[in-house]
């Protein structure tokens, strides 16, 4: 296995350096253009075998990874497991061993258990990329969020970014928190206290109870988190109706801000719950830019983990590496 500048695996942003994160963002830049071509394919990962191992339902992330892999000319296989009578852990160990026995190069894993990507990474020689593990991290989502913020504002350092909603259950929030703070943004979280994890204030973020407070704080960006509908059933919030009324990101609330506030959402959106349609579809929404950037960021991650050199990414596109 080629040693990459990112290490063997990408399991989360918590333990990455700001330089590594910037490197991924910078490497994504030249890859953006590949998706704009009529023939969206470069030979950078020709001959590499990648397994997309999804133990949880996913459309956006799985498709985004698959496009990234295919546009780099890798051979890809999708494995979807919705669990079975055997425990997930046992399945994971055995799956890992079987995959390794087939001599693959990379695994992209999504799993409902926090730490599953790290667990797999410690047990196989192939590169492991975390596509979301439980409530832990979703690093490529945060990377594409960072890229999108940088595109929009020209920088990340010094910006005020607030993550709004169900922080407790959100791996997107945790990865964003690490990535944003490492790159010098001011980070806040905002949502009902029932959906705030213990000790979050000790992680260098400001905690707000109301969206209004985040806007008055001077937020440049609101990254609105998805509210899983089961949170209501489990008693974290009384109703979706009230959630929208009290915590929804609406045009009325955004009007408090003297400046335009960039609106992001990792998807899939619950329109009329955590985000008002007029905001999601409004002029300051970059939600679809996030999706576009997702492919480029994932191409960059795959390329770098495979041992590709950042300064050659542009050349790699032309197949002259």
């Amino acid at each position, binding site marked *: 296995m080629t040693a990459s500048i990112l290490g063997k695996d990408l399991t989360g942003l918590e333990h990455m350096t700001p330089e590594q994160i910037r490197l991924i963002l910078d490497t994504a830049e030249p890859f953006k253009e590949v998706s704009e071509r009529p023939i969206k394919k470069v030979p950078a990962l020709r001959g590499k075998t990648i397994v997309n191992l999804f133990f949880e339902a996913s459309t956006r992330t799985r498709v985004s990874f698959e496009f990234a892999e295919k546009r780099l000319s890798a051979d890809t296989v999708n494995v979807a497991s919705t669990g079975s009578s055997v425990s997930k852990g046992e399945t994971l160990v055995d799956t890992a061993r079987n995959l390794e026995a087939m001599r693959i190069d990379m695994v992209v894993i999504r799993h409902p*258990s*926090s*730490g599953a990507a*790290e667990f797999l990474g410690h047990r196989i020689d192939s590169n492991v990329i975390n596509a979301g593990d439980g*409530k832990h*991290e979703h690093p490529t989502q945060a990377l594409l969020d960072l890229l999108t913020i940088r595109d929009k504002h020209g920088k990340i350092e010094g910006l005020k970014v607030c993550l709004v909603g169900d922080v407790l259950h959100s791996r997107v929030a945790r990865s964003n928190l690490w990535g944003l703070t490492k790159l010098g943004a001011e980070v806040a979280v905002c949502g009902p206290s029932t959906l705030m994890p*213990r000790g979050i204030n000790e992680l260098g973020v400001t905690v707000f109870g109301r969206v209004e407070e985040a806007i008055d704080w001077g937020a440049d960006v609101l990254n609105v988190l998805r509210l899983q509908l089961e949170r209501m059933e489990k008693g974290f919030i009384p109703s979706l109706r009230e959630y929208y009324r009290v915590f929804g990101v609406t045009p009325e609330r955004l009007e408090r801000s003297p400046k335009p506030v960039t609106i992001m959402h990792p998807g899939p959106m619950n329109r009329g719950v955590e985000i008002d349609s007029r905001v999601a579809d409004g002029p300051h929404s970059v939600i679809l830019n996030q999706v576009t950037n997702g492919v480029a960021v994932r191409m960059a991650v795959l390329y770098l983990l495979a041992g590709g050199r950042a300064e050659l990414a542009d050349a790699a596109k032309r197949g002259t590496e």
Partner: protein
Amino acid sequence: MSDAAPPPRPLLLQGGRVIDPSREIDAAGDVLIQDGRIAAVGRGLSGPDGTTVRNVSGKVVAPGLVDLHVHLREPGNEDEETVASGARAAAAGGFTAICAMPNTDPVTDNQAAVGFVVRQSGRAGLTRVHPIGAISIGQKGERLAEFGEMVSAGAVAVSDDGKPVVSSHLMRTALEYARTFGIPVADHCEEPTLAAGGVMHEGLVSTRLGLKGIPSAAEEIMVARDVLLAELTGGHVHLCHMSTRGSVAIIREAKERGIQVTAEVTPHHLTLTDHACEEYDTHAKMNPPLRESADVAALRGALKDGVLDCIASDHAPHAYDEKEAAFDDAPFGIVGLETAFAVAHTELVCGGVFTLPELIRRMSTAPARVFHLPGGGGTLAPGAVADVVVLDPTAKWTVDPGVFHSKSHNTPFTGRPLTGRAILTIVAGTIVHEL
């Protein structure tokens, strides 16, 4: 220990440091064991003809260690542990008596099942294994098990450990009914709706790892309830594996009020914090979970001043592949019989928190009294059954689960250098372990 076995030869342990917390003894001397009992303790002793003489200078002679809380997995999961393998591991750890929790498969909730454990213990002929009967039939938390018959068959306490007694009414009746037989009711304190789905302590580390936490209050609510029910009933409640500073405060206050409450703490809760869960190490997954350093400090202080009565290992064997899983999916629990003394000795005695006599009190004399163990234990008083351990307090060793006598190897202490271990374990005058 079998009735048919010939009486062992007299044994003279010569020239050791004799520590007997039951009589406040800590002095150089000899211990003479004859006919399975302590014959004499003093200086310059000699035995009758045929006495085996062991020079134990530089070593410590103490009453055998007692563990009120182990899981032996027989019947049901004999691949993980049996009564015999657990007794063997206990002997190696310096224990002369251990108490087996009833969460076996099937549950040890009747006199036949209790008698089975007693018979398996007798067959093994090693460390004594005292059964604990279930509080409720099938540990379902509904109907009381037959305490009277289980006690007649050898049960020393009742517990639904592994599960809390959710119904306060059931806990009340258990405490009342147990009074009749003079046994404690041992409770696993966990408020189930607060703890549901939790896999580690709720705090900053669980937030970072994205793992569902179990708040300290989940334990403390049940500790407070049990204390109040002990007060209401006059029964004896024994609180298993205490883990939080809040629990300590409640127990301290209850003891000051004269409520009949005893409590235990594990070596791992005295020495590790939730940081051990970082890297998703499933060998740091146990219930109750490892807490914070302030909790560890409070537990140590409470053990020293007797608010917590004793150390218990909560030895919980699991097959290697069960812990080889994502953190959420791995079972709770670690083995402890073969590391309990050394971990406690290294951290508490070598660490300057406890004296060796204080530690031996908390691992022998005190637990034997808490469960009123038959045959006594926890003392070197002349006439007492000769359950004795010889400890080498200077022995340095490194934890290697590969050489454990336990069938399971799930420990968070792998590779840890420790100081102190049992070199000779004697049950009723018979050597059951020798290093």
